[in-house]
Structures are given as structure tokens and as C-alpha cells.
């Protein structure tokens, strides 16, 4: 009987996602322990530790915002290779002399609108032009960086706007504004994915597009909106990065696409779509920025750093899988 089948499976009640995230928390803890063991003198200073946590969070903020958008796109069955390029284009456009003359509001507005516009173009190409997402956004990557180089004359454009530049150094209740922005985007992303029709339809569109269509969902329009959302996230990230670097240039946010996709996947998002969690994606980003921090405080050379990094990523995923399996096993009893 279905009744028994249903009862037999009750351990599943505890969400896969939650267990996976627990695994990532475990990975984070292990990374911190490695840090403590290797550099005890630093970790013995509470102020330093506090600052270190804030630094890690701050360095995760821009890429974290991008990853939230990316997670939506991937859950919806797509991929966005153009996020780094969108950031560059938004950042460069927001820091031209002309835009800067409109002040901070003008710059923020420009970055968001450029991000949104590029996202919409991606979305239209993919949903109505029927281009494979990989190809469409790869083409956009190339074009948007080209346009950014054209606009900036390949120069680093310094931001003269104190308000923009101050975003990166402002703190609220002791926590950097950038981290608040990340928190807000993650919270909004979580609500959007889990508590709105938009989010639920995203899962449907990515998980079973045919079923979504049969259920009367406008799959094309929804797909378009996902890329637009990713574009807006890139616009936000562009402002954050511009503020951090007090400048923008065509080569900024290099390879952010890889980092964002990797973070989303490590966080438990299925590359083929239909499943993923925002909190997991956040943890994915944190794992990467904690690894970077660990390398920095141990002064590893680039080549050793790279060799080790691959190993850590593999280990992290294996630990997470192991925890996942053993936990489900445990809960089954």
C-alpha cells in the first residue's frame, strides 16, 4: 500500500538540503580548525578572529550576491557564464565620467539597469531565440567584456564618488555594509525560492519543463525572468566591487562565473536543474573564501596553493557526501 510506502520513508522528512548544508558547516569547521592549528598565535587574539570572520564575509559578499542569482538560473535549468562580464560592463558603465556626474544614485541606477538589460538580452536569446544557455551566455561574456573595454578605453576608471567608495568601509552595528547587503540578498533569495510562486515555478521549470508547461506555466517568460534576476544580482555586485576597488575596469570580476557556479554546485544545486538551495550556495561561497583566507594566513605560494586547493575542494565534497550518507543512515533507524 502507498500508506506503508509513505510511512517507511518518513526519515526523508528531514530535508536533503539541510543535511547537505550541515555537511558544509562541518567542512567550514574543519577549515577553521586547520587555521587554528597552523596559526595559533593569530587565533589567540579575539579581535583578530573577529576581524578575520568579517574579512571572510566581506570578501564573500560580491561573489555571494552573484551566486544567489546564479543559483536561481541553474535551478531553473540554465547556466549563466556571463556574470563576470556583466559585472564588468555594469561597473565600467557606472564609472564613466558622464555617469559619475549624476552622483551615487545615478551610478547605482546605471549599474542595476545595465545588469538587468544584459540579463534580459540573455533571457530573450535563450527562451525565445532557443539558444543553448551555455552558448548564449558565453557569447554574451565575450561581447560584454568587449563593450566594457570599448567604453573604458581599456583604462581603469577610478570612482570619484565618495558615497560609492564609502560603501565598502561603512559598518552598521560593527558589521560591514557589504555583509549586510549579502545577508539581505540571501534572505530575499531564500524567500523568493521557497515561499513564492516564482520560486516554486523555478524548481518546476528546471526540474521538469514539460510538466511545467503542461501545468500552464509560461516557461519561456519564466526563463527570461531568471536571467534578468541574475543580471540584477550582477549589477548589485558591480556596485559592491566598484566600491571595494574604488574603481572599475573591463577585466574586473575575472572568472566569477566559474566561482559562482562552483559555489552553487558545492552548495547542493543540481547542474541539470530542478534542485538547489540558497543557503547551500552561501555556504559554498564561504567555503571558497575561507580557503583563500587560510592560504593567506599561512602564506602559501600560488603554485602550492593551487595544488592544495583542488585537493581541498575534492575533500570538502567527499566529507559532505560522507556526512550526508551517514546522517541519512542514522536518521533512518
Amino acid at each position, binding site marked *: 500500500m502507498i500508506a506503508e510506502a509513505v510511512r517507511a520513508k518518513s526519515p526523508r522528512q528531514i530535508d536533503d538540503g539541510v543535511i547537505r548544508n550541515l555537511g558544509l558547516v562541518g567542512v567550514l569547521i574543519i577549515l577553521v580548525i586547520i587555521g587554528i592549528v597552523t596559526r595559533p598565535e*593569530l587565533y589567540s587574539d579575539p579581535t583578530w578572529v573577529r576581524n578575520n570572520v568579517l574579512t571572510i564575509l566581506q570578501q564573500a559578499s560580491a561573489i555571494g550576491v552573484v551566486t544567489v542569482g546564479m543559483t536561481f538560473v541553474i535551478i531553473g535549468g540554465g547556466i549563466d557564464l556571463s556574470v563576470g562580464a556583466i559585472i564588468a560592463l555594469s561597473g565600467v558603465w557606472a564609472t564613466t565620467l558622464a555617469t559619475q556626474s549624476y552622483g551615487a544614485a545615478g551610478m547605482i541606477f546605471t549599474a542595476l539597469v545595465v545588469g538587468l538589460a544584459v540579463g534580459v538580452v540573455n533571457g530573450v536569446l535563450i527562451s525565445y531565440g532557443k539558444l543553448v544557455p551555455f552558448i548564449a551566455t558565453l557569447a554574451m561574456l565575450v561581447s560584454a567584456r568587449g563593450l566594457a573595454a570599448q567604453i573604458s578605453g*581599456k583604462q*581603469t576608471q577610478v570612482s*570619484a564618488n565618495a558615497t560609492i567608495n564609502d560603501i565598502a568601509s561603512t559598518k552598521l552595528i560593527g558589521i560591514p555594509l557589504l555583509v549586510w547587503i549579502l545577508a539581505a540578498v540571501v534572505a530575499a533569495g531564500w524567500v523568493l525560492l521557497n515561499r513564492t510562486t516564482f520560486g516554486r515555478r523555478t524548481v518546476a521549470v528546471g526540474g521538469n519543463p514539460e510538466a511545467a508547461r503542461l501545468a500552464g506555466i509560461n516557461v519561456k517568460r519564466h526563463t527570461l525572468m531568471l536571467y534578468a534576476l541574475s543580471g540584477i544580482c550582477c549589477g548589485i555586485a558591480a556596485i559592491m566591487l566598484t566600491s571595494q*576597488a*574604488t574603481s572599475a575596469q573591463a577585466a574586473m570580476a575575472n572568472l566569477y562565473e566559474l566561482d559562482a557556479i562552483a559555489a552553487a554546485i558545492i552548495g547542493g544545486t543540481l547542474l541539470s536543474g530542478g534542485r538547489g538551495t540558497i543557503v547551500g550556495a552561501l555556504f559554498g561561497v564561504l567555503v571558497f573564501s575561507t580557503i583563500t583566507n587560510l592560504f593567506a*594566513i599561512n602564506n602559501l605560494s600560488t603554485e602550492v596553493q593551487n595544488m592544495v586547493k583542488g585537493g581541498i575542494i575534492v575533500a570538502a565534497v567527499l566529507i559532505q557526501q560522507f556526512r550526508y550518507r551517514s546522517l541519512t543512515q542514522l536518521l533512518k533507524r
Partner: protein
Amino acid sequence: LLTACTSNDPGTDAQVKTNSSGDANAAPGTKVVIGFSAPAADHGWIAAITNNAKAQAGAYTDVELKTVEAGADAAAQRAALATLIAQKPTVLVMLPHDGKELNATGLEAMRAGIPVVNLDRAFPSQAAYRLQIKGDNFGMGLAAGDYIGAQLKAKGVSNPIIGEIPGIDSLELTQERTQGFNTALAAYGFKVANRRPAEFTADSGQASATALLQALPKMDALWNHDDDQGIGVLAAIKQANRSEFFMVGGAGSKAAIDAISADNSVLKATVTYSPSMASSAISLARLIGQGKGLNDLVELQVPKQITLASETITKENAAKYAKLGF
């Protein structure tokens, strides 16, 4: 501090030298077609190289400049140069992606009877170029290390904590700079405490500097290889509210020189690696094409090798260098 000097306007700050002092070489001679290729610019220094070359060529009535874009990597540049060589320019000025990888192309051009001016990144084979103009990467690190060593010694710091932010670490030029830096520091008995490479971009500079500052809660001196990424490095220092150390830059951008003369940040000096070498390369390529030599030299032809000295710009001499900033 940096806010006043956006470099959004390429061209105006290009470095041009016309020999105006009644020099015989300045007089128009036979027409010279100069082929030019440099890697795709995605940061200030390379962009300045191309701009300088164009501006310098524009200053001569007897020079026609044919530029080909070098694309994303050595393979692309090889392909682009193949088409350029087929067009038989009088002289070829080339800043390769990688000197070793484009050595074969240099040889090919020389064999085809086109003198090659090898800019910045050296060809290993002597037969692959007619003239080599290089910045001194090792010397740059040496200069930065010397400045830092001297300053710290003067201050009487015995066991200084020194940070380093190189550019893209897989490039050989980065290696040479770092070696020079370490050599100079070793002379003072100092060494680098932490080294976080960036990617020649401001945002990567900010990220690397943030990591470095976190790893070194107290620091005495910092060398950042590249003034373009230095914009981000300085931003990170300000965001971290740190000022207990001084910083030396690299390359010599206008923004950096201005900051040094204003003396209101941790940036106290920068060691040059000037993109003006592109202007010089065009001038000398013209002379090679016309078979002329350098006036102050006894020899009748342009010499085979020129290595630019890396100079240290400090508050004291900043005014003199202001016009060379890019």
C-alpha cells in the same frame, strides 16, 4: 586622493618625444612602414603601450603604423603576426605575449628581411630581433627592495614585516620582479613575510591586499608590483583602516605619482617600468628603417639592446616624473 585623476581619457596622457632640438634625425626621411603588435590590453600599462606607440608614430610624417591586435594568447598573436609579416612592413615592433613562445615568429620575420624590434618581453634567440628594448623587471624589484630596505634601516626597524603583492604570478616578468625584490632585501637581511598575487586589476588588487592585511595584523612595508592594481590595494588599506606601514608601487602611473607627491597616503614611492618604451621603440624602429644611427653614439646604427633603468619616484622627485605617468 586618487579620485581627482581618473584616466578615462586615453591618448591625452600618451608620452611622445619628438627630437625638436635641431636634430638631424628629426628631419623627415624615407617613408617607413612600421608593423606593431602588442597583446590585447586589459589593463592600464598595456593600454599605455599601444597608445604611446600610436601617438609617437603620429608625431612623424614619414611613419605609417600598421597595428595588428594580438588576441588572447600567444597562438592568436602568432596568427595575427603571420598576416602582418605577409604585408612586408619595413620594420616590425612586437611586444609578445611571451617572448619564448613568439621567438619562432621573430625568426621568421627576420629571415623574411624584416628587422624586428622586440619590446619588453625578450626573445631568447639573438637572431630573432634586430633591437631589443626591455624594461628591467629584476631591476624594478631591486629598486623597490632597496628603497624599502633603506627606509626601514633608517627607521631602525630590526625585524621588519614586509608584504608583497605581485601581479599575475604565472608570468615570468613577475618572477623576475620578485627575485630582484628578494635580492635587494637580502642585502639588508630582510625577507618577505607574506606574498599575495593579484591579477593586474584593481578588484583583484583589493582582494589580495585584504587577504594580506588580514594575514599580517602588523606590517612595516609593502611592495605592490603594479600601480593599476594599486588602486585596489590602496582602497583595501583604507577600508581596513591601516596606516602603520608604508607602501611602494610599481610601473609609475599618473595616479600613483600624484599620490606620492600629495603624500597623504601610505604610498611613498613607486619604481618605474615605463610604457614610454613603446614610444622609444617606434622612434628607433623608424631610424632602423631609414638606416640611421643614434646621434650621441659613435656607431652608425641603432644598437642591438637597450634596457631601461628602473627609477624610484619619491615625493622629492615626483614633479619631474609627473609627465611620464600613464
